[in-house]
């Protein structure tokens, strides 16, 4: 179980290999990747700035991973979240959940993303073609998604 927050990109195959190579108890690996879209509110997006709360981010992501381990049978998990300036098509976040069986892996991946979206201290600022940056508003649908797990 591990979390990383950094500017560099990640490679999914490499991360899956690190988590699962040599562990033949793993029968299921669910992965989620979040990416920067080229459009926001119907307008072209030029870039996105990802800010976070160093120290708290790692603590919060670790708490979220720990919570997932109490709810699902997980063999291993991994969260990577990028920060800094990102462009359309760039990766933002990677979540991997490894389990013996598929429903635990997929549900854990879903759970980790819902918690990350609503609990982990990251903030997105979107810059459009007019050069003006605006902070992304939190979405109530994310809070509703979180309620599924209560």
């Amino acid at each position: 179980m591990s979390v990383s927050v950094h500017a560099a990109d990640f490679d999914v195959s490499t991360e899956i290999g690190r988590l699962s190579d040599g562990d033949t108890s793993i029968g299921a690996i669910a992965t989620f990747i979040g990416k920067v879209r080229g459009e926001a509110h119907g307008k072209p997006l030029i870039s996105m700035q990802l800010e976070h709360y160093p120290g708290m981010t790692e603590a919060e992501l670790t708490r979220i991973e720990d919570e997932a381990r109490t709810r699902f049978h997980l063999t291993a998990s991994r969260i990577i979240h990028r920060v800094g300036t990102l462009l359309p098509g760039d990766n933002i976040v990677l979540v991997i959940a490894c389990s013996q069986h598929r429903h635990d892996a997929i549900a854990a991946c879903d759970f980790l993303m819902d918690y990350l979206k609503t609990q982990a201290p990251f903030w997105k600022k979107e810059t459009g073609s007019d050069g003006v940056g605006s902070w992304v508003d939190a979405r109530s649908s994310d809070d509703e998604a979180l309620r599924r797990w209560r």
Partner: protein
Amino acid sequence: MSTPTEPRTLSVRYFAWVREKTGISEERIAVPANVVTVGDLAMWMQTRGPEFAAAFAKPDAIRAALDHRHVKADAVIGQAREIGFFPPVTGG
């Protein structure tokens, strides 16, 4: 250890538009004696000049963390070493 006669000091960190409005990302403050909860501190922030008044104009729009844990406005600051103020999170 702080005593009643010796003001507590607290690291305060600001993020996203709260940081942009206050104009600073981190500072150390002496907590006023009548500030007990996180909500008290947010109200007191409004009195620190126009930038802070603007940043904390709508306390409901701001979230807080004490020593890296999410807290509500009624949380007691107590012996916490660090508080963060920020908008609702939008990562992922």
